[in-house]
Each structure stands twice: as structure tokens, then as C-alpha cells.
């Protein structure tokens, strides 16, 4: 049965090892989980980095995505279906899985980036970020994304 992220409601997951990162950065860099999730999706997509399998740790409901995030997700899904594979466009759940794989891939990139690298603490149960408000991560994140945006606009 056909479904869509625009209309239907799904649980969004991440890898259990990333859950602490989401928790730490919520309120410190972003207001909500979905902001970090979408950023990771786009980072993963831009860098062609996907996780091999989908994480199992619940993050939030897909309804919380903003209209702009959804439009951007579907733009990527449409690009992906250009070769005639419309499965992702037909099935909301599959589309979300595809996005989750990129999100987890993007998270790996983020954790290795200059912004977070020095704050990353690896633990047995996953990764944590040891940053405080004094580290101005929100500003660094903003600057990082804006620099990438300017680079692509100039191209």
C-alpha cells in the first residue's frame, strides 16, 4: 500500500551509540532532535556516506519534520528515483529507512568534523559529547553549515 512521509506518521530511529549525541546537542546547538537528524541526512547524502543498516533507537515521530525538511528529503528521494526506481517515492517507510541510513552516516562525519572532534568521548555504550555552553557549538555549527552553503552557491 502506497504511503508518504508527507502524510503518514513513522518512528524515526538512530543507532543506539548516537543517542547521547542527540541528547547532548538538543538545547545546546538545536532546539529539537529532527534538526540534527536532517542535518545528518544532508551531510551523509552530500558525502555519499550511508550506514549499512538502520539504527534501532527511537528518536522522535516523523510528524515533527518541518515542511522544508520534508521538501528537502523528497528532493533527494526524487533524485534517487531518477533511474526509474520509484519504490522510495511510493513507500514512506522505505523512504525513511533510506534517510536514516544517511543520517547515521552523516552523524559519523559530524563526529569526526573539527566542530565536534575535540569534544567526542567514546564510551562502551556509544559516543558522548563533552561540551558546554561556553564552547559556543551552536555558533560553530552555524558557521560550518553556512560556509558549505556559500561554497555551493558560488559554484
Amino acid at each position, binding site marked *: 500500500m502506497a504511503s508518504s512521509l508527507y502524510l503518514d506518521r513513522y518512528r524515526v530511529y538512530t543507532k543506539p551509540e548516537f543517542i547521547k549525541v542527540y541528547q547532548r546537542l538538543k538545547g545546546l546547538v538545536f532546539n529539537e532532535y529532527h534538526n540534527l537528524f536532517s542535518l545528518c541526512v544532508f551531510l551523509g547524502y552530500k558525502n555519499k556516506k550511508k550506514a549499512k543498516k538502520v539504527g534501532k533507537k527511537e528518536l522522535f515521530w516523523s510528524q515533527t519534520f518541518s515542511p522544508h525538511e520534508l*521538501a528537502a528529503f523528497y528532493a533527494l528521494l*526524487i533524485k534517487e528515483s531518477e533511474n526509474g526506481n520509484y519504490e522510495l517515492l511510493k513507500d514512506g517507510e522505505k523512504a525513511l529507512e533510506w534517510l536514516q541510513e544517511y543520517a547515521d552516516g552523516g552523524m559519523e562525519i559530524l563526529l569526526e568534523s573539527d566542530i565536534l572532534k575535540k569534544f567526542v568521548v567514546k564510551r562502551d555504550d556509544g559516543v558522548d559529547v563533552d561540551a558546554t555552553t561556553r564552547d559556543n557549538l551552536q555558533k560553530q555549527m552555524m558557521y560550518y553549515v553556512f560556509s558549505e552553503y556559500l561554497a555551493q552557491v558560488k559554484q
Partner: protein
Amino acid sequence: MVITDIIVKDFKQFYGEQKIEIAYDKKKNVTVIYGANGRGKTSLFRAIMFGLYGEKRLAQDPEESEEELKLVNKVAIEQAVKNKKKEVEAYVQINFIHGQKQYSLKRYISGIKVSGEHVEQFGDVKLTITHQGNSNTLKDCEEIEEIINSILDKRVREYFLFDGEKMERLTRFSREQKREIENGIKNLLNINQLAVANKGLSLLLKHSEAQLKNKSTGTYQQEIIKLQTKESEKQKLESDLANIDKELRLAESELKGIDIKLEQYKGIKELLQKRTTLNSELEIAKTSRNDSLIEMININDDLGVLLIENELREVGEMLGKKIENQELPSPIRERLVNKILKDGVCICKTKIKDNPEALKNILEWKDRLIDEQVEQNLFSTYGKIGATREFIKHKADSVQRSLQDFANKSEQIENCEKALKKVSEQIGDQKIDDDIPKLEKSRTDVVIKIGKLEQQYSDANDGLHILKEEINIISENVKKLEREEGVRNDLAKRCNLVRESRDALTAIYEEFTKEIKEKIGTYATEIFHKLIDEEGSKTFKQIKVSEDYSLELYDWQDKPFLANISAGQRQVTSISFIAALAKIAGDEAETLEIPLFMDTPFGRLSGEHRDRLLENIPNLTKQWILLATDTEFTKEECQMLKSTGRWGKIFTLEGDQPGFTNIKEKNVITFIPQRTTAIERRA
């Protein structure tokens, strides 16, 4: 008395032995001592006071200013500690001529550091008198004091030096002014003995009246009791007045001390204010930057979409093309294809059953049809891409603004911190932050206290006048009753005699002071007219010392004018008064017998007043020693003084460290002050 030279060793700022020669040639009797504030101009005057009288304290020293009263050079004391020497022996030697004799007076003072404290002790004093080639050296303190006092009376020592403050004080309507003038006059009269006798007679009168009261009856007794009561009240009031006066002096001295400290902190105060301003600016900038950071979290909502602007554009363009090529929307096409296949006729009326080519095209078209849900997603996305790209544009703008704002605030913080660091370095480690507000608070308290005390004094004084009137009336009554009732006993006679003696002494005292007041007024007026400019001379008639010892300047209509005169005229009035006092002290000779020290006298004078001062003072005194700073002794004053032909010597006080002032003699002809004239500055 003519001072020829002063030698100081390890005295105040003057490290080691240094000498200053005072011009004493009749034609060239002006000496200029030129130096910045704090270099030791007043210390030279202090050296003379110490040398002549062994006095540590000057009249201008506040009561509690112990620091000023340390006379031995601190650097020398520190070095003595370092070199394990026991003490430093400082001295002042004053060489002078009086009459036909030459005098050399040398006074010692030693300084030592005990448990970190600078302690001083008076040492020996030695006076060598040379007359016609014969020298005699005296070492007895009392004998020396007697000789010095006979040459230069200690009573008028305060009038050798007049500084701006003294000049200001003399022409300000205040109790302080009256006190200053009263003291000057009393010092000149030397009537302490008269006051003692008066006090003794008052006590005797009290005693006699008590006896008389016990032996009297009826109305006479009642009047005696009344008189006694009033006399007691008067005595109490006089004692109250003396106490209030004492308190006032203390409070005024305290105020002076506070003002000196505040003046010292003035430079630092500006820096502290700057630091406070910078600190609050820094605080505001930091708070504002923190607000920006909090706001950034909100701006970071949907931030990620900025990363795929390119993809959004590409997909938007692609979908647009599909729509343009009628590949979308497919549900209409699907219904159309199904209808064509069912009807067997195309919309162009071609019968597709008969036209295999047309049928093939229609079937290929049907294959390209996509799922309805997919198409819905495509359309939804196409519809949203435009809005999202617009959103990205706005988001990028607000991100840029936010980052710029953050950078500006960070720069502001950095600048504030740099400025703060600089100011803090300038302030150094002086812990005075708390002192200034405390001092200012103390000052306000003291000013209020002085105001209250002055009111109390004035009330008590008024009460005293009334009491004196009442005592006079009762005394007359007593005398009348004595006449009427024929009281002729010895006790009554004694009482009357004592009272009359006391009243006579009071009258003598008042006559003396009246006379001296008039004399001072006459001399001061004479000098005033020499010093004041032409316009002032036309406006003002004379200076008078009023009954209550206030100094007043009258115009030609005999109206008091002191409250309305300019700062320069005020200064000339003060100088005239002090010169008059000095003239009387010097037995009213045409030329003052004492050397006159003037500390920075030009500050408030107009060009004409200054010129008149420069022209006339050298004729009024045997020696004029000008203590001047670079700000007031400019090229203009220098040229004017040169033109008088009276300028004999110039010394500069130089040094760049505390405790190391060097006295250097310069050539009067070639000397050029550091500051240019006002005219040159304007040019």
C-alpha cells in the same frame, strides 16, 4: 634679614647634599624656583621653617597628615637599611645676613627604620654668628631660639609663604577667613598676657560677687544674684564657643586632609571611572553576545536544508521540465490514454486501430505513466521546493546577520578587554577602589558637620552679645542700687574695682585691635592700589578689616564689594593684606624685612595684574622667592620678569623618581620655560 643660601642634606625629596642660593642683591632680588608639582617647591619652604624654628608642621598641613611631616629622605633611609647603617642624619643649613652680622644656622634631624616604620628624631642645632671677622658658635636651643625670634618673629612665620590656598581663604566669607585674620592680628599684637589678665580678673570678680551676694539683702541681693547668674551663663557660653571653635578647626582640618587625598586620587579616579565604565560596557557586550548565542539555537532550526540548495534547484528544474513536457500530471494522461484505447480514436481524430504507428506511440506513453502516490509526492515536492528555496535564502540572510552580529560583539568584547588591561596596568596594584567612595562620603559628612557647627557658633555668638547687653544693664542697676541704698562696704567696692579693671582691659584690647585693624587696612589699601589694574583702581577705594575680623573691599561709594570681585582681584586683595601684615611685622619699614615666598601666585591673575605683581613685589620686599610650576611660569611670565631687571637667580627642580629631586641652577638670561605663551599657543 637676608637669606643668602640654603643647604639641605637628605631632606624631603632632596637626596644627598644640595644647595640653593637666594638672590639678595638690592637690584636683583628675585629668585625663581621652577618645578613640577611634587618636585619639592614647598619642601624648600618647609626646610626654612625647620631650619629657623625646628618646626615640622606648616599651617597648611592637615592635622592627620603624618606622611607630609616625615622630613628625612626616604631613599636615603632605605639605602641605610640596605647598607646596614644605623641611621640617616639629615640637616638644613640656612645662611643669612642681619644687620652687620652673618649667621649660619644648622639644624639636624635623624631618620631610621624600625620594624618597617619610618621614625625621626630631632638632632642638634648650631648657630654661628660672624661679626667683623670674629665667629661665635652657639649650641643652646633656647638661646638660639631667642636670637632667631628677635631677628624674624616666629609669630609671623606663616606669612613668609603664601600659596593660592591662603589667598583664597582670606577673601572667602567664612569663619575661616575671620579666624585667619584674627590670628594674624593677634600674632602681631602679642596680647596673650592681656587675655590671661582678663581671665584672672573674671575669676576674681566671680569670687567677689559670690561673697557680696552672701552679705547682701533685698533687691540689691537679687540684682547681684542675677548678675552672677548672667556672668556664669556668659562664661559657659564663652566656653561653648571655644569648644565649638575647636571642633570646627578639627573638622576643617579633616576636610583639608580629605581634599588632599582626593586630589591625589584625582588622576587615579578618572582611571577608576574609566575602568568602571569599561567593565559595565564589557558586561553589556558579554550579555548581548550570550543573547545572540541563545538566539542562534533558534536560528539553527532547519539549518541543514542550506546544505542541499543545489539538489533542490536541480529537482525543481527537473520537475518543471516534466510538467512542461506534459509528462506530469499522469492521472489525466492515464484517463486520456485509457479513453483513446477504448474509443480507438485519438484526440487528433486519428483512428488508432487503423494506424499501428499511432497505437505504438499511445502504448509507449501509457508505459511511462507512474504510480498515483508517486506523482502526488512529486507534485507536493514541486510545490514546496520554491517555498523551501525562498526559506533557504532568508535563512542564509539571518545566519549571516547572526554571525556578523556575533563577530561584532566579540570584537567589542576584545576591545573592552584590551582597554581594561591597559587601564588596569595604569592603575597598578593600588588598592584604592574602596577609598574614594569612602573619602567622598566622609567629605560630605564633614561638610554637613561644619555647617551645623557654624550655625551653632553663630547662635552662641548671638546669645553672647545679648548676654553682654543684659549684664551691662544689670551692672548699671547694681551701681544705681548701691548709690541709692548707700552700699559702701569694702566688698562692693572691691567688686566694682575688679569689674572696672576687667572692662578697662577689654577696652584696651579692643582699642589695640581696632588700631591694628585700621593700620592693616591702610597699608593693604596702599599696596592694593599698586598692584591692581587701572580699572580696579577706579572701582575700588579701600580694604578694611571689619569689627568681626572679616576682610572687606569697598568701592568709591563705600559699598562692600568683595563678593563680586574677580578671581584675580581676589588674589590681589589677599596679597595686599598679607603684605600689609608683613610690613607691620617688619616694624613698618618701607621694604619688608622678611623674604617673601609665593607659591604659584600667577594662576588666577590677568595679564595686567601679573605684570603689576612682577613689577611691584620686588620693590616691596628685600627678597622675593617665586615657587612656580611650568603651567603658570610660561615664556610670557619669563619675558615679563626679565624685563623688570630684578630677576637674580633661577633654579629648576628636576628628577624622574620619587625621592630624587636635583636642584639645578640655570642662567636667567638663557632660561626658557617648557611652556609657550598663551598667544603662541593660540597661533
